[in-house]
């Protein structure tokens, strides 16, 4: 069968797939249950290509390409897992662990954390680089939620869900480099934010225990994300 106009055929890990031209490599992989690690990408949000975990090898390109923002092309041959990719992914996850103070054993998200799970999946049993141990705050001023910057990996999912889905744009990033930090409004206590609607979407898209509901103890914070693709689709239908 020949593909209809516009449909692209490509190979991922040696298997043949067809895809719409507006799909990314990651979209196709996800549809077909091929796991590509990522932290900043979340189905239903815009993509930023920031965490660099979803880099893949594409035949003919000497650069590694972020699968979340790279659109499929006819005849593309993609490799999602290789020794080299795993090596880089491990280093990136180790960097994330070394950046802030991730103490899994006392974390509300222990056992439900994307960072923790990915570390295990990549076979990381220790972090080879010294921990940075920055002094960052925990903001519990919101009546229902808490942000613990110790566990934030700056994936900006909260920023995007608040802007794109809720439409409040309460969150953004301040500063730059390793000192960057997510903030609410004018870097004020979350509880005093006039723009926050308290919808809690940011909490549920957060991959780690950085954003959580009050009253949750160690390992008790399970996140719910199924609402997201649904909301995004509803939104697109209305537009």
């Amino acid at each position, binding site marked *: 069968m020949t593909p209809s106009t516009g449909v692209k055929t490509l190979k991922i890990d040696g298997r043949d797939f067809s895809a719409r031209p507006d799909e990314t490599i990651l979209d196709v992989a996800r549809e077909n249950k091929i796991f590509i690690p990522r932290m900043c990408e979340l189905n239903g949000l815009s993509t930023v290509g920031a965490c660099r975990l979803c880099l893949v090898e594409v035949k003919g390109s000497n650069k590694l390409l972020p699968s979340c923002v790279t659109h499929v092309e006819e005849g593309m041959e993609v490799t999602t897992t290789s020794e080299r990719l795993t090596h880089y992914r491990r280093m990136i996850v180790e960097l994330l662990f070394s950046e802030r103070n991730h103490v899994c054993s006392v974390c509300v998200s222990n056992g439900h954390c994307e960072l923790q799970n990915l570390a295990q999946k990549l076979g990381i049993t220790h972090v080879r680089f010294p921990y940075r141990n920055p002094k960052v705050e925990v903001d519990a001023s919101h009546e229902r939620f808490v942000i613990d910057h110790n566990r934030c990996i700056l994936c900006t999912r909260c920023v995007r869900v608040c802007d794109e889905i809720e439409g409040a744009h309460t969150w953004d990033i301040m500063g730059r480099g390793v000192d960057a930090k997510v*903030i609410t409004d004018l870097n004020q206590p979350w509880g005093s934010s006039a723009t926050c609607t308290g919808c809690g979407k940011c909490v549920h898209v957060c991959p780690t225990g950085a954003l959580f509901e009050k009253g949750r103890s160690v390992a008790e914070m399970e996140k719910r994300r199924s609402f997201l693709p649904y909301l995004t689709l509803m939104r697109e239908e209305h537009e």
Partner: protein
Amino acid sequence: MLTFAKPAPPNDDKRWRLVDATMRRHGQQSRGLIEALHTVQEAFGYLDDLSLRYVATSLRVPLSRAYGVATFYHFFTLKPAGKHTCVICTGTACYIKGAPLLLDAIQKDLGVLPGETTPDGKVSFLTARCLGSCGLAPAVVYDQQVAGKVSAQALREHLSQWTRHDA
């Protein structure tokens, strides 16, 4: 239809007119944010919550985005500057030609780190990535005046003039 009214300036300080003019020139659009912040800093010396809030709401920029922009660019400062400012250039040429000695001297004499102001508010100590005056390395800017080939001794003397008898 939802109407949007531009907020009134926070107070009757005349300098808001300058800020308003810049925002008008950019069609009250969010893309004028950085230019508006430049004007605020030029007029008031620094950006505070009041001005950030005013500019953000006038240009319909989310507050967190305005704050994010203000803190992304190192040229902007959120704290009032001291009476005098001393900028040490730390560009490559200046570094090679002894800027570290100047940094050391100023940190010892004033007891403040780059980006800080002395507790008495007399001197702000800043560093610049490159003033483009590499031919004059190491370069220092004393209150907008560029000085070239500065020695630690000369720097100390200049600083002591500011800190000693300051009318």
